């Protein structure tokens, strides 16, 4: 599903954020991406979102080379990917419902279908009763769950999460990881960037570790920390 083939990213000014990174993720696989800040986690996710283009190497999604996508094809690609942002990126002047509906609206879904799917997604994260609230009226954990609902409402094949448990207490973190597990169980490829070691240690998952832009560790098991 996801295939990094000897991929490097150098920013103007010479900073090399990623160096010869290669790995593969199968459809329905779930993995952690870890490493200290500045190691290249964000850059890797940005490349997957086509917010950045690689300097060299190939990035294949479902067999398609993203290098060959033109800028006008980017929106279509992004509709197949769901992203949970660290700062959740919710629109504060819109209701929870409207925030979650956004990916469907930009894809041109009819209103009835949008209502059905948004409620299903909100039900999935346990926030069905908050659909008419504004994000500011919610707690941090609830805001993060709205972000997750928005990331999965259009049934993406790939789910990316950037520090999804950043500011949450362990219990909320566990709940959110359980949500990700459920998406994985229905075939979604889930990649979670985090440096929350306790979280990683609690779950038996593949862990990819980045150090100064290089993939130094790629394997399963209980952390290794």
């Amino acid at each position, binding site marked *: 599903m996801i295939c990094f083939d000897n991929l490097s990213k150098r920013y103007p000014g010479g900073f090399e954020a990623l160096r010869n990174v290669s790995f593969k993720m199968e459809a329905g696989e779930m993995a952690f991406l870890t490493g200290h800040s500045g190691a290249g986690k964000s850059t890797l996710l940005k490349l997957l*979102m086509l*917010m950045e283009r690689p300097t060299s190497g190939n990035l294949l999604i479902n067999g398609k080379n993203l290098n060959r996508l033109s800028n*006008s094809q980017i*929106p*279509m*690609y*992004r*509709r*197949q990917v769901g*992203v949970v942002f660290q700062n959740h*990126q*919710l*629109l504060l002047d819109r209701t929870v419902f409207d925030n979650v509906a*956004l*990916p469907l*609206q*930009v*894809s*041109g*879904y*009819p*209103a009835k*279908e949008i209502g059905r*799917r948004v409620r*299903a*997604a909100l*039900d*999935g994260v346990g926030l069905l009763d908050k659909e008419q609230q504004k994000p500011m009226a919610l707690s941090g954990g609830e805001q993060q769950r709205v972000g997750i*609902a*928005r990331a*999965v*409402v*259009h*049934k993406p*094949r790939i789910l990316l999460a950037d520090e999804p448990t950043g500011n949450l207490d362990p219990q909320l973190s566990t709940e959110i990881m359980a949500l990700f597990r*459920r*998406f994985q169980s*229905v*075939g*979604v490829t889930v990649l979670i960037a985090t440096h929350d070691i306790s979280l990683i240690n609690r779950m038996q998952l593949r862990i990819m570790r980045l150090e100064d832009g290089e993939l130094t560790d790629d394997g399963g098991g209980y952390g290794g920390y």
Partner: protein
Amino acid sequence: MAATDNSRGAIGKNLSFAHRWRGYKAHHRETLRASFVKMLHEPMQTVLTVMVIAIALALPASLYLTVDNVQQVGSNFESSAQITVFVNKGAKPEAIEGLEKKLNGMAGVTSVEYISAQQALLEFKALSGFGSALRYLEDNPLPAVFLVQPMMEGEVDLVQTQKIITDIKALPVVDDVQIDMAWLQRLHLLIEMGHKIVLALGITLGIGVLLVIGNTIRLAIESRRNEIIVVKLVGGTNAYVRRPFLYTGLLLGLFGALIASIMLFSCLMWISSSVENLASLYQSQYRLQGLGITGFLSLMLIGGVFGLGGAWIAVSRHLRDIEPR
């Protein structure tokens, strides 16, 4: 739960074209409505922008109406422009009859009226008040006259009229031909100049409208930067992002044109009674020409096009810079 549905895949596969088209139309309606609501939420900004646009549209439009009305007045006079043909004194009645036939047969002549020397004398006596002075003259000093009405369809054809005059001059027994064309020519030049001023003013203020709308849209884009980024991140196309701003520009232009029309209409109502009084002094049935339905629709069209154009310029300049980083 959204993700438990196993019929996943590319979105395009589970959305029919008809569904997409309906969604697309619904989105346009929704965007229009949302743009309108957003404008109402910033009433001061909206009112100011609309008023600036309205004034910028009303100025050239009112000048255009003025020129148009002057032209109407001019054409009223033009239709009464007559060519006076003086017949040689001592011309034989047969020769005069022949001249009348020739004048009637000329192209571009609508009617010919003959006034004999005696008739002219009687008219002069009756109208001038110098009747008694004529008694001291031995014979009738006045020549026989033909009043020739050249054809005038709408705009007077000065070249054509000039040609008629030359032709008449060449006819036998014609002594002299008179027409007061100089002031008509001046009027025409003035109207032509007026049209050019309208055009120049229109272009200048049109650019002003583009800039005003462009600036308003630029501010709107800036204030919604975060929203644009999120929309792009979840797969919104550039067209999708552009749409609300284009609708805002269109609405601003249309409202500006509407207010401009109302301003022009009020002004005309205010002036028209004075014009009617003035016209009645000249025994004229003249009435001020307003915008009319065509003028109103043209103004709306111009407002809409400029609104959309200004928004387009702003959007194409500023939206590309906003990319998720």
